[in-house]
C-alpha cells in the first residue's frame, strides 16, 4: 500500500513538473502577444490586440503572404509525398523484386542525411532551372524530404492488411493500381491520414531549405519570416513576433491535439521502423 502511495506521489510530482515545463513557454508566448509592454512580468499587464492587427494589416510585414506560402507549400508537399509514398509502400509490401531490402535501407539512410549537405547543391539546381524563390522550388525538395518518412509509416500500415484481401481482387483480374485504389486504400485510410498529417507538419516546420531557396514574400515561408523579424540594435518587436508565432502555432497545435492518436501512431511507426 505504501509502495502504491509512493508511486502515486512520484507520478503527480512528475505530472506537475511536466505541465509547467511544457506549458510555461507557450503561455508566455500567448501573454506576450496580448501585452502592450514586453516587460509585464512583475509589473501590470495591459491587454491589447494591436500586435495581431499590426502583423495582419501592415503590408510591408508580409505576414499573411508568408502564412499562405507555408500552408500552400506544405499541403501540396504532403499530398504529393503521401500519394507517391502510398504507391511505393504498395510496391514494397505486395511485390517481390530483387534488391528490395537494399533499396529500402538506402531510402532510410537518405532520410537521415543532414540538410546542410543537400542545401548548397540544391540551391544550384534550383537556380539553374529558375526555381529560386518560387513555391514550386520548395514543394519539390519538401516532397522528397518527407518521402522516406511517409514511406516507412505507410509500409508498416500496409503490412497489417491481410494479403487475402487484395490477392483475391488481383486474381480476379484487377490491375495492381485498381486493387490498391479500391481495396488497400480504403482499409489503410487511417494510416494515410496520419502520414498526411505528419508530412504536413514536417514541411510546415522546415527551415533551412526555405531559408536558402527563397528571397522574398513570393515564396518565403512563415518560419523564415519569423526568424527574420527584427528591430534595430536590439530593440526587438516582441509583441508582434509573438503574435505572429501564436497565429502560426495555432493551426498546427490544434491539428495535433485533435488528431493526437493518428500522430502518435504515425510517429512511433515511422520512428521504430526507421
Amino acid at each position, binding site marked *: 500500500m505504501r509502495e502504491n502511495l509512493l508511486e502515486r506521489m512520484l507520478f503527480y510530482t512528475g505530472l506537475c513538473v511536466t505541465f509547467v515545463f511544457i506549458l510555461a513557454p507557450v503561455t508566455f508566448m500567448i501573454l506576450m502577444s496580448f501585452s502592450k509592454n514586453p516587460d509585464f512580468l512583475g509589473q501590470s499587464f495591459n491587454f491589447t490586440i494591436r500586435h495581431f492587427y499590426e502583423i495582419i494589416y501592415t503590408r510591408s510585414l508580409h505576414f499573411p503572404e508568408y502564412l499562405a506560402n507555408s500552408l500552400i507549400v506544405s499541403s501540396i508537399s504532403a499530398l504529393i509525398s503521401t500519394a507517391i509514398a502510398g504507391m511505393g509502400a504498395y510496391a514494397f509490401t505486395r511485390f517481390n523484386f530483387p534488391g528490395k531490402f537494399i533499396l529500402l535501407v538506402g531510402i532510410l539512410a537518405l532520410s537521415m542525411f543532414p540538410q546542410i549537405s543537400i542545401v548548397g547543391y540544391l540551391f544550384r539546381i534550383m537556380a539553374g532551372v529558375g526555381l*529560386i524563390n518560387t513555391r514550386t522550388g520548395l514543394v519539390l525538395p519538401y516532397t522528397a524530404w518527407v518521402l522516406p518518412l511517409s514511406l516507412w509509416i505507410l509500409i508498416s500500415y500496409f503490412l497489417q492488411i491481410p494479403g487475402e484481401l487484395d490477392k483475391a481482387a488481383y486474381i480476379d483480374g484487377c490491375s495492381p493500381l485498381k486493387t490498391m485504389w479500391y481495396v488497400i486504400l480504403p482499409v489503410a485510410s487511417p494510416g494515410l491520414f496520419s502520414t498526411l498529417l505528419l508530412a504536413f507538419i514536417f514541411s510546415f516546420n522546415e527551415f533551412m531549405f526555405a531559408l536558402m531557396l527563397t*528571397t522574398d514574400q513570393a515564396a518565403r515561408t512563415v518560419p523564415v519570416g519569423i526568424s527574420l523579424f527584427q528591430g*534595430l540594435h536590439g530593440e526587438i518587436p516582441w509583441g508582434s513576433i509573438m503574435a505572429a508565432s501564436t497565429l502560426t502555432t495555432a493551426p498546427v497545435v490544434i491539428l495535433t491535439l485533435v488528431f493526437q492518436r493518428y500522430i502518435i501512431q504515425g510517429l512511433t511507426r515511422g520512428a521504430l521502423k526507421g
Partner: protein
Amino acid sequence: MNLFEKSFLYITITLLSLLTVCSKPDNKRIVLAVGGAPSEVEFWEKIAAQCTEQTGIELQLIRQPTDTDQRRQNLVTALRAKKATPDIFLMDVAWIAQFAGSNWLEPLQPFMDKHTISDTSFFESVVKQADHYDNKLIALPVYVDGGLLYYRKDLLKKYGYEKPPETWNEFIDCAKTITEKERQKNKNFVGYVWQGAQYEGLTCNFLEFAGSDKPGIVIDSSSPIIHTKRNIEAATLMRDLIEPYNISPQNTYTDMKEEEVRIAFQSGNALFERNWPYAWKLHQSEGSAVKGLTGVALLPHFKDGRSASTLGGWHIGLSRFSKQKDKAFTCIAYLLSSEVQKQFTIQLGWNPGRPDVYNDSTVLQIMQHAPILKEVFNHTVVRPVVPYYSYMSAVIQRYLNAVLSGKIEASAAFIDCEKELQEISRRYSK
C-alpha cells in the same frame, strides 16, 4: 475511362497546374531591398511612393531583416541565383568587396555620366575608399557611419577640462582622474566604454585605436600585415584600459556591443563612449540621464598619429542581373538626391553620404554636431577591401578578444594572427 483512372488523372493535372500557377513571373517594377528597424522601413516605403510619383517608375520594397549577416545571406541567395530582382539594394560597407569581386555589381560610371551626376557630390574619401573595386565605381553611399567619441560635457567642465582629450596620453590622464573621483559617489562609474566583445565591432574599434594615416591592417601584394609596432601598441592599450588602468569595465571583452555600450553611457555611468552616430539621437531622447550633457568629438589618437574613424554604413548598388538597369539607376539617382537625403537626415537622424546636406539650415538645427560628423567622415579608415574580408575579420576578432581578456600578449597574438590571415589570403587570392 473508369472512375479510378479519371480521378488519378485529374489529381495529377491539378497538382501540376497548382505547381505552375505558383511560380509568378517577374514584373515591370523596380525592386529595392532594404532592411532595418520597422520605423526605418516604413520611412523607406514613403520614399518609394514619392519616387514613383516623381519619376513615374514603380519602386517596390523588399523588407529585409535587421541583422547584417542575414541581410547579406538574403542578397547572396538572390544574386548567386542570378535573379533579376532585387534590382537595387543596400549593402553594408564590409560586403561591397565580396559582391563586387563576385561580379554581381554593375559599374555605375556610365549611368552617372548619362545622368550628369558627379561622384564629387559625395564624401570623396568614402567613395574613393569604399565604393571602388578594380578601379570601377560600383556603389554609392546612402548612409555613412564612423566611430565617434561621446563625452560628458558636465563632468569635463566640473574637473576643469576645457575640451575633450585628443591624444591617448591625455585621454588616460583625464579618464583616470575623473573616474577615481566619480567612483567615490557611484560605484558603477567607468571611464570609457567601447565595443570589445568578439564580433565585427571589435575589429572596427581596433582599427580606430591603431588609426593613423595608414590603416591598421595592410594588404600589400596580397599578403596581410598586422604584426606592426603600431598595432601592438594599440592592442596593448586596449588591454591596459581594462587592466591595469581600470578605465574600461571588465565585461568589455565579454558583453560590450553597440547597445550595451550605449546603455552604459546613457544611464550616466560612463565618462567616455565610443559609438556610431546613431547613439546621439537616443542620448538626447526623453528619459536619458545624459540628455543635454553629451558632447561629440573625434576619437583620440597616438601622439604621432591622427584620429581615425572606421567607416561603416550602407551603400546602394545596382544588380548586374537587373533587366531594367536604366530605370533602376533613375531610382538610385532619386534616392541619393540632396532633397531625399535631407529627409532621411531629418526624419531618421541618418548621416547622408552627401556633404552638402550637412550645410543645410534645417539639418543643422536638429543635428548640432553635424560639423563634427563631417570632419569625422573625412577621417575614415576602411576595413580591408577584399572579398574575403569576413573570414579575416573572424580571425582578427578572435585574437583581439584573447588579448583583451589577458590570455595572450599582443605581440604573440599578432604573430599567430598574421599567419592565419596570410593563410586565408593565400587561399582566396587568385
